């Protein structure tokens, strides 16, 4: 399906029935329970311990956030852990026989992998800018490929190719049986799920690197609706719409961006009561506010009638700014900038060239 088609395939916002809402609630409860399960696994795993294929520990580690203050050593070890896990999954003799916990595990592995890549970029950039810690700069210079963008893209593209996920999604779209094209790897849930979420992961990575058209292109095969696989994991659903909406916005397709943001914001407002108390509620609430800011920017640039719930929420959260942006003129520019800065994903430099000549930068 071309972009135009997908752009025109409007998500139908009025199709909620009580049954669907019920299903969303159940999905959500399942996710919360899953998270609880993960924290038990955490206690049994240890970072950088013997790599003797203590697989369960590796699987758990891959889906577990690093501590905020993790040392450079831990970051390197975590990268090695991902490499050996993905190497095992991708390059063993035939598909590996692994019990996969579930969708949430697959999403969290990819999500955490990219999150660590992102925070590593930020960290490397900070070391390059301040140049205070010579020892760390030295280590980073010696390991340019650790958390390098070629390595990260390689993992994501390999998972997509191995699982034949694009072929599978296309078959589904044509109304054929995806299993017929899934192949030896893609017919297993482990590969299928990792492949699928790698597509969403690439969307995010391309956005973080400032390549918005490629980010959208990656989603060519993915259907944007509630029946899509990403919709089964709240965080994935949410993330996908945020990055797709943002990419459309950067492509100046404000109408499409507004549609994407509206869809997910309506969804979140309807499931809000079930998320309170969930462990990623705060992160979702923050992203939610960011999307309200972005939708306010889009509507100021491209006047559109919003869904009533969204409109009143925008007025409530950003009333003053919204008014000033709609009024326009030079006074509106700082407001646009302020909201954009606080709501856009952080775009990164993918390489460490600045590390090589720290002196030249000043």
């Amino acid at each position, binding site marked *: 399906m*071309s*972009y*135009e088609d997908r752009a025109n395939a409007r998500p139908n916002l*009025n199709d909620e*029935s*009580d049954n669907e809402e019920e299903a969303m609630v159940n999905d959500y409860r399942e996710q919360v329970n899953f998270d609880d399960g993960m924290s038990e696994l955490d206690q049994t795993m240890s970072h950088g311990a013997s790599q003797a294929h203590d697989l369960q520990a590796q699987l758990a580690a891959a889906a577990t956030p690093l501590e905020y203050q993790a040392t450079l050593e831990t970051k390197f070890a975590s990268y090695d852990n991902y490499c050996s896990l993905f190497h095992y999954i991708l390059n063993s003799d035939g598909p590996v026989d692994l019990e996969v916990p579930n969708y949430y595990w697959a999403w969290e592995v990819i999500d955490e992998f990219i999150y660590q890549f992102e925070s590593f970029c930020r960290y490397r950039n900070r070391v390059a800018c301040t140049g205070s810690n010579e020892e760390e700069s030295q280590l980073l210079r010696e390991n340019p490929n650790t958390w390098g*963008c*070629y390595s990260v*893209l390689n993992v994501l*593209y390999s998972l997509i190719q191995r699982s034949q996920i694009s072929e599978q999604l296309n078959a589904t779209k044509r109304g054929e049986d995806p299993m017929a094209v899934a192949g030896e790897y893609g017919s297993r849930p482990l590969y299928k799920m990792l492949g699928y979420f790698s597509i969403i992961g690439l969307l995010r990575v391309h956005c973080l*690197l*400032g*390549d*918005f*058209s*490629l980010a*959208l*292109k990656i989603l060519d095969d993915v259907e944007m609706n509630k029946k899509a696989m990403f919709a089964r994991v709240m965080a994935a659903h949410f993330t996908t719409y945020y990055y797709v909406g943002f990419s459309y916005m*950067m*492509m*100046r397709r404000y109408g499409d961006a507004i549609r994407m943001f509206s869809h997910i914001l309506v969804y979140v407002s309807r499931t809000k009561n079930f998320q309170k108390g969930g462990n990623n509620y705060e992160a979702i609430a923050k992203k939610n506010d960011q999307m309200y800011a972005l939708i306010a920017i889009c509507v100021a640039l491209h006047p559109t009638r919003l869904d009533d719930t969204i409109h009143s929420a925008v007025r409530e959260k950003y009333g003053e700014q919204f008014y000033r942006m709609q009024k326009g003129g030079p006074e509106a520019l700082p407001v646009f900038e302020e909201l954009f800065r606080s709501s856009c994903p952080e*775009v990164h*430099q*993918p*390489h460490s*060239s600045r590390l090589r000549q720290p002196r030249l*930068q*000043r």
Partner: protein
Amino acid sequence: MVAFDKCETRPAHIEAILNGLDRYNPETTTVFQDYVALQCEDRTFDCYANLALLKLFQFNPHLIQPDTVTNILAKALTVFPSPAFSLCLALLPTSTQPFPTTSEAQSASQTSDFVESVQKLTRLSTLLESAQYAQFWSTLNSDDLYADLTADVAGFEELVRIRIAVEVGNTFRSITAENLESWLDVRSRDALNKFVVDVCGWKVDGDVIRVPTNKENEARSEVKSEHVGIEQFGRVIRRGFELPA
């Protein structure tokens, strides 16, 4: 409208690279560079392929060719108003970003020629996008560096002039010849009349140029009506009949 990842004039070998993983292969850099040179010559523009080259530069900063980058940016100006210019800008190294934050501005006191070129082209882009056409031409003619930056792009001025004319046609029904002369940077009334009639297909009416109606410049009254079907109230009605628990 053509989808953003397509281009009618794109050769098959470029299409093949773009659709495969070779788009990340540093060895394809030269292929894309030749393609940029071709676009400069034959007045075509392939945004999606040029972004792929900028991405290769982003991943392999040692390969970056400032001349090719500035040619891509200059070409992007010839397709305004489109997101092409800003999409290209987003893939350039931070050190060349023309919109520095205050802290970066202080540290960027020493700028290279490359950075200056990017800033100059961005200035042109801003003027075009804010419809400051007369100022665009005076800026373009104010400094020899601008001539250098656009020298490789065949027909740069002509291409931009046509895009400005399209924007004018979308906005106006009639416009004074004097205004249009400065916006299109046409020196004489004769040349203007010729351009307006031959290229745009508009009419000259003394000192006023008349633009025939088109989809954009036509005044339309908006009919606001809402259709609310009974099925949209289905749930409300159903709830109304539910027995109290």
